[in-house]
């Protein structure tokens, strides 16, 4: 992959010129940030007298048995959900093998804040934001499984406990606490019916908001088919309430309030017990992602933050056991 800002700009300009013709002027708007396994670049582009801001997302490494959708799958999904009127970034084009950049795709930039601490700072905005998130989620879930038919063969679209167990097994790292959680989930398993297209990583940190209004749902790389409560439960998982533990729904509202807002927006609200099931699932799943980052560090994707992920699993295990013991709500 090209590295210097001017190489990145040249690569992007070439990708645009191939598709749009002419000689688009391109400027990298910010220093590239590396988050997780993707490189995100923001470009200001002037073409045919118009300036717009575009976002390039590239997969910086492809792992075998990755739990994430490929860039191509993400791009096609964005086309469908954006096309169906869901607040998601507008997909512009996908890179191909003739482009210097990629694999990945390009989206229109959406203005807004995604950093949880900043988003949650003004509590007076919480009710509005919670309502808009509940509404957008209900709209997404109403699209139905047909919109996610490409995703039907993913392990996550089958039995969620079996899929999560297989992901954990692939990491070859024994965790008795997580096994206890998986055992509990298996013994209290949900019916396989009632699945629809879910976001798959719906949590505070994965949406853009501005002045208390929802701008876009981001990071669709975990989308699959599941019961709607999968998204609600992940949103309510204890790990991302950002110090506001009693506001189970992403630090913005209580679980019960979020369900009320979801129902008010026309969603078929699941019962509290199912949401709690998915929160237990969420702690184990989040542990799995942290294990994945720790293993990635050992295998060459190195940084202090990735290295710390492995030990962070201990926090999720503790929260899981406290929940199973009835000490955490």
């Amino acid at each position, binding site marked *: 992959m090209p590295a210097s800002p001017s190489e990145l700009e040249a690569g992007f300009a070439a990708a645009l010129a191939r598709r749009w013709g002419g000689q688009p002027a391109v400027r990298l708007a910010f220093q590239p940030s590396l988050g997780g396994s993707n490189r995100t670049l923001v470009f200001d582009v002037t073409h045919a007298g118009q300036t717009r801001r575009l976002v390039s997302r590239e997969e910086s490494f492809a792992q075998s048995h990755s739990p994430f959708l490929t860039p191509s799958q993400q791009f096609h999904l964005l086309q469908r959900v954006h096309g169906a009127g869901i607040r998601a970034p507008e997909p512009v084009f996908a890179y191909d093998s003739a482009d210097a950049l990629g694999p990945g795709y390009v989206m229109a930039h959406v203005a807004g804040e995604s950093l949880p601490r900043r988003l949650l700072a003004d509590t007076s905005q919480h009710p509005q934001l919670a309502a808009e998130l509940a509404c957008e989620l209900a709209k997404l879930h109403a699209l139905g499984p047909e919109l996610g038919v490409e995703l039907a063969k993913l392990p996550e679209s089958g039995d969620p406990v079996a899929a999560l167990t297989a992901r954990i097994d692939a990491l070859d790292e024994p*965790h008795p606490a997580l*096994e*206890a959680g998986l055992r509990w989930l298996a013994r209290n398993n949900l019916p396989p019916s009632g699945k629809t297209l879910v976001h798959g990583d719906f949590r505070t940190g994965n949406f853009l908001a501005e002045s208390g209004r929802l701008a876009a749902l981001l990071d669709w790389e975990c989308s699959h088919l599941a019961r709607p409560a999968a998204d609600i439960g992940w949103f309510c998982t204890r790990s991302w309430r950002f110090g506001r533990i009693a506001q189970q729904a992403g630090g913005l509202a209580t679980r019960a309030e979020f369900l009320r807002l979801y129902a008010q927006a026309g969603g078929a609200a699941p019962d509290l017990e199912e949401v709690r099931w998915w929160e237990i699932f969420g702690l184990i799943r989040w542990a799995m992602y942290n294990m994945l980052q720790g293993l990635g560090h050992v295998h060459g994707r190195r940084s202090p933050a990735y290295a710390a992920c492995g030990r962070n699993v201990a926090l999720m295990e*503790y929260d899981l056991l406290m929940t199973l*013991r009835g000490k955490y709500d």
Partner: protein
Amino acid sequence: MYRPDDADLLRTVADFLAGIAPGLSSEARYQALVCQHILAMLARAAELRPPEDHTPARVLAAEIRAGAHDAHWETLLARLLEDATARLALIKPDHIAPSTTP
């Protein structure tokens, strides 16, 4: 079992400090390089320690999955929570819930 191991964690911090050292003021750069040296010593010591035996954890994990502990579930959870609390005392003590019993 947690990855990476202690030696790798120490080397990761040492490498990070070595990476940022050139950009620091001369006093901070000097101290950062001393820190790198200290961490490298601890990493070498960690590498000499016998590797942790993960067999008990593997066995317990397999037993739990097979349902062998279903009959005494609360006892299992209590034991696992005790282990998890002890681990958190090292990893992040302020994540441990304050005790509710007097």
